[in-house]
């Protein structure tokens, strides 16, 4: 049997273990990678490989960025920063038709700039924005989709856990990936604004205008934005000018967040402990996801399957954008059934070398993959954001959320097309940086 055939059998086994045993993605990749390595090389080599890889990956300095940025996000989550952001956005946009939905996306965009977790962003904004939108008579068709989709901005806007994982897995600069995510996240947010605007023009009853607020109230509310903006400037600005490594930026962000929340009693002891627990839980998950991908990648590398696929795709007499479109469709379909982060980690060993072989810029290609991965968080049946919204407000029917999501999915697709046509949108800031 050829090595490539062994690689294909390995992928089939991985899918069987994933779907039929329900084994966690990271563990499934590690175990199938281990067994494949054992089959191709030897048991002793496989055993040595997993032991060495687990220690080498876990003790990598580069990975320490993960717990620090996750901790930063959870501190922001538990200290009420999101409430103040929403309040400010609400004071400025609440009196417009669909203004509360626009305020939600605006607050999402700002909160995403300090919190790298998609789920934390949805949970926070959902708890704040859904009751407000209900109070002012917003239709669930608009409110549920707005909250579920707004969270996806956290995946693209730095500091994003997904970008960190892509950087670690593909050995790219996390700083450049962070900088490359800023403009695409703003583009995506703007298209969400446009979606809300159009929906409220067509069906005004979906988002009736809220009460007007005075200029004084508006200005006063801006205080709530200052801390989030300051954290973003410290973290991303520090990375941009080269003062911090990504790990240092995370630690500095944590220190600053504690300094602006603890003295004012905004972070309670329970919130502090919960932040630690959630950070450790997610960090352990991410670390093993990366380790599993490395072990599986070693197995695939000895079968030469990723290189063969890349060579084959590169030799096809079609435009590279046709192949890119096929890859994106695979991600959209895969994201419907597998957790989006898990699917990304699972497929990068195959699709990243493919992108490079097709001559795409690795930073731009990573951002495109991140954008399409965000869609996995809102596509049924396993879109996690949908269930977070349902959990926050059980009265909203799942079918309503699915329907609502459709409008925003169009915005996601349009943003990907724009990024493909204008790659400079993601490459401009990384090229400007030192």
């Amino acid at each position: 049997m050829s090595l490539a055939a062994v690689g294909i059998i390995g992928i089939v086994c991985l899918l069987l273990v994933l779907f039929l045993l329900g084994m966690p993605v990271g563990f499934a990749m590690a175990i199938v990678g281990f067994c494949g390595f054992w089959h191709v090389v030897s048991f002793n080599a496989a055993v040595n490989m997993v032991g060495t890889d687990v220690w080498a990956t876990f003790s990598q300095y580069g990975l320490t960025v993960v717990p620090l940025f996750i901790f930063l996000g959870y501190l922001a989550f538990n200290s009420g920063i999101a409430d103040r952001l929403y309040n400010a956005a609400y004071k400025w946009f609440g009196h417009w038709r669909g203004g509360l939905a626009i305020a939600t996306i605006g607050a999402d965009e700002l909160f995403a700039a300090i919190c790298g977790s998609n789920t934390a962003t949805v949970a926070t904004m959902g708890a704040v924005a859904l009751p407000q939108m209900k109070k002012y008579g917003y239709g669930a068709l608009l409110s549920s989709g707005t909250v579920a989709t707004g969270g996806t901005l956290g995946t693209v806007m730095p500091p994003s856990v997904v970008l960190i994982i892509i950087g670690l897995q593909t050995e790219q600069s996390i700083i450049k990936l962070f900088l490359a995510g800023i403009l695409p996240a703003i583009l995506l947010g703007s298209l969400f604004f446009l979606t809300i605007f159009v929906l409220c023009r067509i069906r005004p009853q979906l988002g009736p205008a809220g009460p007007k607020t005075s200029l004084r109230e508006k200005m006063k509310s801006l205080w709530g934005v200052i801390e989030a903006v300051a954290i973003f400037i410290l973290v991303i600005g520090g990375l941009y000018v080269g003062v911090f490594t990504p790990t240092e930026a995370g630690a500095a962000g944590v220190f600053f967040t504690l300094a602006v929340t603890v003295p004012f009693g905004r972070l309670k002891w329970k919130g502090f402990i919960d932040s630690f627990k959630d950070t450790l839980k997610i960090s352990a998950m991410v670390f093993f996801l990366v380790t599993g991908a490395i072990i599986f990648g070693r197995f695939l590398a000895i079968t030469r399957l990723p290189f063969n696929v890349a060579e084959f795709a590169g030799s096809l007499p079609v435009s590279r954008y046709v192949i890119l479109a096929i890859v994106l469709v695979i991600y959209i379909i895969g994201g419907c059934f597998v957790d989006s982060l898990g699917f990304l980690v699972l497929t990068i060993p195959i699709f990243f070398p493919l992108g490079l072989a097709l001559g795409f810029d690795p930073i731009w290609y990573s951002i495109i993959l991140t954008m399409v991965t965000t869609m996995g968080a809102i596509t049924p049946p396993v879109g996690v954001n949908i269930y977070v919204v349902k959990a926050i407000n059980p009265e909203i029917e799942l079918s309503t959320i699915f329907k609502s999501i459709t409008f925003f999915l169009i915005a996601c697709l349009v943003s990907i097309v724009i990024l493909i046509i204008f790659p400079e949108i993601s490459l401009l800031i990384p090229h400007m940086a030192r």
Partner: protein
Amino acid sequence: MDFLEKMSRLLNQGLLWIAGLLLAVMIALTCGNIFFRVVWVPIRGTFELMGYLGAVVTAFALGYTEIKHGHIAVDIVVLGFPKKLQRVLNGLNGIVCTAFFAIVGWQVAKYATTLWRTGEVTETLRIVYFPFTYAVALGCFSLALVFLVEGLQSFLGTREEEK
């Protein structure tokens, strides 16, 4: 069975608290390094210590994360199976993962022993680092224990259902 479950829970709870403390140390160390780099000289060996501390922090949280079902899994197909089959598959999953993490823990511990015997030290601080490696092995063993408990619970549950 109850004893195993209690032991697994206590062990992983204890490791989680240590992981939390070490995470706080990581933050303090990095912030201290930034501060001293600006006002005087950087703290020597920060990068290598951060790597080792990060390894222990996450290895100690592996078991707790599994107890809380925090590792991403694709259960969309499994949930469609009859309850009894689900239990059998969960049991199988638990046993396979127990064996795998026991092997990983064993290998990492073996590597730590080699580091200890050869007196291997870190590049900058010149300190031994095998204790960190043993700690990662302990994290893997504690995860294996969680899977063992989950696997046994699934199989015993199936037996009780049959009775």
